[in-house]
């Protein structure tokens, strides 16, 4: 039984080693080497690699600009809206407010601006996926 198995393994091994042996013999190795070199010369290897590096790099830079500008704009409009709302709430009767009430109004005006500033600083490009980066770029291009 074991002898049969060994014989069978040896046969399998021999067959596997024969597989493709003739194709390998027929292969003109020198011609293959020259053909490979010619193709490598025709399509310089650095071009692809450089493009592959440049593309994500520019994507990231462009996305960073969009995020900074976008978040800044949003923060400014939110700040402006809330300030206007707070001032409107206070209306013309600020004179009627007590010191404590005035402080509360001031805090309400200052707080959102602070929060938005922190949010903008926390934004990281690394948090964005490739599709998100692409979407940002597309939005830049209009």
């Amino acid at each position: 039984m074991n002898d049969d198995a060994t014989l069978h393994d040896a046969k399998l091994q021999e067959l596997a080693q024969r597989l493709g042996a003739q194709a390998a013999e027929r292969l003109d190795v020198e011609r293959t080497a020259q053909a490979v070199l010619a193709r490598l010369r025709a399509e310089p290897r650095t071009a692809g690699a450089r493009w592959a590096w440049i593309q994500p790099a520019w994507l990231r830079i462009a996305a960073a600009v969009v995020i900074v500008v976008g978040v800044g704009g949003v923060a400014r409009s939110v700040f402006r809206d809330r300030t206007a709302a707070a001032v409107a709430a206070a209306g013309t009767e600020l004179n009627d407010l007590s010191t404590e009430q005035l402080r509360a109004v001031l805090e309400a005006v200052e707080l959102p601006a602070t929060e938005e500033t922190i949010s903008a600083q926390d934004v990281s490009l690394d948090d964005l996926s490739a599709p998100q980066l692409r979407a940002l770029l597309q939005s830049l291009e209009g």
Partner: protein
Amino acid sequence: MSSAEPAAVPAPTDAALIAAWQGGDEPAAAELVRRHARALARFLVGVGAPEADVDDLVQETFIRAFRALGTFRGQCLFRTWLLTIGGNVVKDAHRRNRRRRVVPLPDDLRSSAGDPHEEAVAGEAEGRLAAGLERLPRMQREVFLLRVQQGLEYDDIAAALGTTPGAARVHYHHAVKRLKEYVK
């Protein structure tokens, strides 16, 4: 005039040739092709490449390998890494030519040495093995060929195929078990 023979220069390692090619030395790339092209051709046939396409597929594999050399970290032998790229090249070629029928190798292209009857029997068994390999899952097929046809170690095979040596061993045993059924 000195009659002393020049000392034999040891052949550069694959790693040295790779470094030389990355530094722009074209003959280093050509030497890598000369060194590994035949083993690659055998492997490509083993994973199902039509023999008529072997020349093109060998070239394509080397082109892909040279372009991807930046990702090769020496985790396995260069040859093992190259052969696994060859496996991908054949898979892609199959996908492109899915509708194309594979023409069986004509008898006159088979070895003419030895007893004709023995040759015919061996050729038939070889055909059964090729058919059996085609039916195996890709991982089993590649592990089997890398181990049996190329004589590579499980550690090296596992590193090239992104698996563990233990898993590579299991794939090998499954492959052998199934191939024995086809070949007997």
